[in-house]
């Protein structure tokens, strides 16, 4: 009984240390959106509070008699299993390195399906617009300003978005990637012919020609489990020498590609080179200062 109490204290302490260490090392950014970092720090503090209370319980054992109800619960094999499960994430988290989501996950999530669906939606939206041309003046699905206004105010965002169609060359940086991506997918005709610069990882699917690949990114809303995919179909002579999951920085021109019956904005690459995986490989729907 006493031993079990000590064991619980150790587990709570290791959970707290694990969380603190994740934050100190910056590994936490490989797991969750920076917007939720404070919440995760609170979890670390709560673990410390639980740990202190548990210590008190050990050193002043008869301060309370409430524990009788749990005698049967954590004894024998069942008890062993439940503690094993509790320790499992600590064990895995401590001994295994965290990896960045890669092309295999993109495939599981249906990369081309999500790229195609944005294209199909655009076609649908255009259709609706032409049908009700007299009534609908604005974009039926305007990109959301609030989504990005965490660190950027609405005026800044609006002026960036207003400039976009008039820019001769578009650079998809971390902050504006998702907003520009959405704008380009909503109105690909408007952007066809423009120069574009972006980074991403190489992803391929069956049925691609040797010159084709997708330059993709993951967008993290909350944690990497809810990652969704954005990216552009790209065309480059001799693209086959870039293996999947290679990170690249490319410059090219936007054109309209007919991919399996869907019109997609795609990129004809004029200049592309490999880069090391960025420190911050993920994009976040809410823009913010990172560290």
């Amino acid at each position: 009984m006493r031993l079990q109490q000590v064991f619980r204290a150790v587990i709570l302490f290791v959970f707290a240390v694990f969380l603190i260490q994740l934050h100190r090392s910056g590994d936490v950014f490989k797991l969750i959106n920076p917007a939720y970092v404070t919440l995760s720090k609170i979890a670390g503090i709560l673990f410390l509070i639980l740990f202190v209370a548990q210590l008190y319980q050990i050193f002043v054992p008869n301060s309370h008699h409430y524990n009788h109800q749990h005698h049967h619960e954590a004894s024998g094999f069942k008890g062993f299993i439940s503690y094993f499960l509790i320790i499992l994430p600590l064990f895995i988290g401590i001994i295994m390195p965290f990896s960045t989501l890669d092309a295999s996950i993109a495939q599981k999530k249906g990369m081309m399906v999500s790229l195609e669906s944005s294209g199909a939606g655009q076609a649908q939206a255009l259709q609706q617009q032409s049908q009700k041309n007299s009534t609908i003046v604005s974009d039926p699905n305007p990109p959301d300003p609030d989504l990005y206004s965490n660190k950027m105010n609405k005026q800044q965002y609006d002026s960036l978005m207003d400039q976009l169609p008039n820019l001769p060359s578009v650079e998809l940086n971390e902050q504006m990637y998702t907003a520009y991506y959405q704008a380009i997918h909503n109105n690909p005709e408007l952007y066809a012919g423009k120069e574009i610069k972006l980074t991403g990882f190489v992803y391929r699917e069956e049925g691609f020609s040797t010159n084709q690949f997708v330059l993709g990114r993951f967008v993290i809303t909350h944690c990497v489990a809810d990652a969704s995919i954005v990216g552009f179909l790209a065309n480059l002579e001799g693209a086959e020498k870039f293996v999947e999951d290679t990170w690249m920085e490319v410059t090219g021109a936007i054109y309209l590609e007919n991919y399996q019956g869907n019109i997609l904005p795609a990129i004809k690459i004029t200049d592309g080179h490999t880069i090391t995986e960025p420190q911050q490989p993920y994009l976040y729907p809410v823009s913010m200062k990172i560290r």
Partner: protein
Amino acid sequence: MLYSGGTILSIIEVPAAILQMNTIFISILIEALPFVLIGVFIAGIIQIFVTESHVKRWLPKNRYLAIVSSCFIGACFPACECGIVPIVRRLLGKGVPIYAGIGFMLTGPLINPMVILSTYMAFGNNLNMAISRMIIGFVLALMIAFIVSCFFRSNHLKIPDHFGQEHHDGHGHHSLMHKLKDTVMHAIDEFFDIGKFLIVGALIAAFVQTFLSAEVLIELGEGTASSTAVMMALAYLLSLCSEADAFIGVSFQHLFPPAAILSFLIYGPMLDLKNTMMMLSVFKARFVFVLLIVITVVVYGGMIIIQTLA
């Protein structure tokens, strides 16, 4: 230093897919832990400060009124599907009837300011989806709670007698300090009870995300009936937090009709892999199984009827 940032095993060759799965697994936990810990603290507070007589006084005697008010309280209570399970357990232990507990558990994560705001933002500042999610979800939760009330009367807790009828109840002579300490001790018990189920749920969800192709599922979804079923299956398997699921739901917007997206947004917060596991820590397996069927049938049926009418 206790450990060196998780690189010990990098010397040994571990398959990339396993590392991906582990990363997703730990990330689900890191995401869920703050909410679970806040949940167990609230559960501890309920355990020590709320008595059965409070519950009797506060909750309407009438079954229908109790269902409506529990769903309403859940809608006002900002919780997520991980945090709410320990709270519901304590409430049931304090004598809250099972149907009221279920009503509260269903609307808590589904309807709250954070979820509504994120749904509104994800769907391009369009209120339609957020409002439909709230209203239709609320009505379906009422129906589920009502069906539960017809079939189940006892609390169906796994360890019925240990919870609730605690000896501290009504011991007015305990000091506040003492009560606070008891609250924290109960929170610890709760964490160790619920924690293992959360961990198993997160592990299975991570496995599914790493090894099961959503693409295959998506391709099955043609037509109203099957696209709704596909979106509900995705909601169950992905086990997303209700504050983040709208951003995933929106990416299927042009693939499936709005009603299928809506069923994803309503079903996910009520039921998924992760919270099924957590419910198993609280309720008897048979009850969880029946509840799973009732929720699935009501949400699916409800969404199909809505699509036929619309």
